[in-house]
């Protein structure tokens, strides 16, 4: 059932309609254990090996709240400038779906732990947009289904499904924005910038892995359009399965162009869940959205209320780190970076790595150059993220130190780094194994210099006659003879000494 949707040209969309966005972000907390039981919270693992009677929903099992997850929820709320509830409860959200073994999800309904906040989002050109936060509440993740039969694991046409409950019960925080209005043509960009800011914030707080590709950060994008000048919101669709920052922007933009074409044609938007298709950037219809009433929420009888004391909240407030965008501004000032240099750092994801390398003793200029240039190239060619390269900031700092002391040339240093990336050990171990130290023993160098001078007597004469720049040819010969392991500056000194120039 594939029909190509009519789309309106984007420029016309924003000329005729005002978009309204609502973003729901689900964050898996990186606690040791699940939300309501002591099963390990870890990605992957053999199916159904991180399970117990509680997260399998076996009769008689009783949940107990993970205190660390509540702390993380409060800290996230505080970082988002939210009020923290004086008293709140969990609620059962009832629905039948095989990925929820209890037949209800333990969530929060009308009493979220955090509410009424905001986050200031910086767009690419530096413009700051304030996104208001409606609420952040605690809930639990579902299991994972594998659809068998039919077309390649798709639910459509599947003959049966297989369930793994390792993820069922993993702590989730759902963060919901208030309607984001007045963004016009920048709405898709604002959506991406908002999710990016959340990701950076949650990463800085060390509460989640925030890996969109692994599902530890997920975004559902609600989009509606209203005619320019109207004040009543249009019917919205909710797009799920948006698995990267870029997809957030593409999904919002696609829905805007799709809605506009339907509305301009006199049609109406069906309120439904849609699925983003990574391959072509379109969305496909999913299930029609159930109303809140159909979930028959009621207070969870097995869990007592949570009433965070104000002292506890203030203690947690003191643990909120500097916001990533404030930190960026400070680093730009401290390191005296141009906007462009800062952008390179941010875009390559190098900022924390450079800072850690500086902490390990390197100068910021050296550290920046290694991460933004050579290591960034390596990350690209090895098809990984900079932060996932198999080298630590301390190791990079050590390489920089060895270059500074003349023990490595830049060329050798890159070979050392390659060795570390290939898993050959620490820089010093790679140097040892590959025999990469600069030849600094003058007697060995002098032999090579004498040999090179003897091989090119005409050049030696020129140097003797005052043409010092001719020494370059001899330096090259010596470097070749020592396989690049000599310090070129020292070689040059020795040549001039030898010919008595």
């Amino acid at each position: 059932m594939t029909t190509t949707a009519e789309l309106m040209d984007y420029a016309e969309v924003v000329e005729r309609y005002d978009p309204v966005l609502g973003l729901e972000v689900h964050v898996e907390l990186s606690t040791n254990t699940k939300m309501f039981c002591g099963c390990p919270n870890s990605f992957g693992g053999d199916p159904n090996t991180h399970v117990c009677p509680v997260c399998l929903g076996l009769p008689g099992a009783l949940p107990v709240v993970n205190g660390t997850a509540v702390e993380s929820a409060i800290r996230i709320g505080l970082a988002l400038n939210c009020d923290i509830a004086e008293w709140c409860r969990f609620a059962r959200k009832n629905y039948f779906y095989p990925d929820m073994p209890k037949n209800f999800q333990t969530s929060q309904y009308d009493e979220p732990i955090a509410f009424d906040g905001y986050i200031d989002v910086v767009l690419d050109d530096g413009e700051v947009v304030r996104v208001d936060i409606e609420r952040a509440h605690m809930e639990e993740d579902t299991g994972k289904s594998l659809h068998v039969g039919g077309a390649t694991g798709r639910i459509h046409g599947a003959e049966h499904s297989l369930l793994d409950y390792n993820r069922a019960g993993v702590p989730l925080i759902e963060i919901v924005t208030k309607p984001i209005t007045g963004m016009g043509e920048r709405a898709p960009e604002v959506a991406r910038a908002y999710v990016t800011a959340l990701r950076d914030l949650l990463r800085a707080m060390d509460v989640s892995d925030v890996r969109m590709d692994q599902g530890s950060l997920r975004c559902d994008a609600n989009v509606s359009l209203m005619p320019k000048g109207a004040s009543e919101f249009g019917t919205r669709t909710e797009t799920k399965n948006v698995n990267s920052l870029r997809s957030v922007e593409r999904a919002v933009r696609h829905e805007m162009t799709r809605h506009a074409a339907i509305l301009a044609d006199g049609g109406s938007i069906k309120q439904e869940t849609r699925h983003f298709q990574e391959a072509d950037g379109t969305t496909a219809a999913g299930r029609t959205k159930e109303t809140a009433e159909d979930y028959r929420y009621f207070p969870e009888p097995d869990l007592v209320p949570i009433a965070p004391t104000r002292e506890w909240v203030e203690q947690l407030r003191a643990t909120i780190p500097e916001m990533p965008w404030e930190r960026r501004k400070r680093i730009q000032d401290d390191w005296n970076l141009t906007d462009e240099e800062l952008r390179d750092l941010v875009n390559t994801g190098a900022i924390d790595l450079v800072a850690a390398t500086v902490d390990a003793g390197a100068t910021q200029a050296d550290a920046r150059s290694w991460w933004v240039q050579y290591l960034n190239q390596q990350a690209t060619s090895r098809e990984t993220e900079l932060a996932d390269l198999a080298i630590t900031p301390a190791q990079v700092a050590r390489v920089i130190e060895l270059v500074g002391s003349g023990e490595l040339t830049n060329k050798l240093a890159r070979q050392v780094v390659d060795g570390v990336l290939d898993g050959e050990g620490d820089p010093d171990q790679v140097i040892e194994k590959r025999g990469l130290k600069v030849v600094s023993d003058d007697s060995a160098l002098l032999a090579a210099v004498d040999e090179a001078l003897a091989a090119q007597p005409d050049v030696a004469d020129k140097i003797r006659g005052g043409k010092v720049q001719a020494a370059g040819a001899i330096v090259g010969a010596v470097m070749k003879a020592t396989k690049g392991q000599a310090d070129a500056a020292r070689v040059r000194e020795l040549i001039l000494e030898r010919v008595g120039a």
Partner: protein
Amino acid sequence: MSNISRDEVAHLAKLARMAVTEEELDTFAGQLDQILDAVAKVGEVAGDDIPPTSHAVPLTNVFRPDEVRPGLSQDEALSGAPAAEEGRFRVPRILGEEQ
């Protein structure tokens, strides 16, 4: 006094995945009415100074330390399952929800 209609009972039954006959709809509508009336009486005696109670015990903030505790093995987890395959619970195909 009829608060609950047959249609509402039918809707609730559908949400709860219960097969209810036409006859039962009438029966349950009447019974649910009685239950609601009985519960509503509580509202008559509770003053504004009495907050709604969802829990019988006056406790808050009962938390567990974030420490891993042993759970079930895969075999144990699947031991009660009507069907299993590849270490997973096998369920009939899921209809009408998503496509």
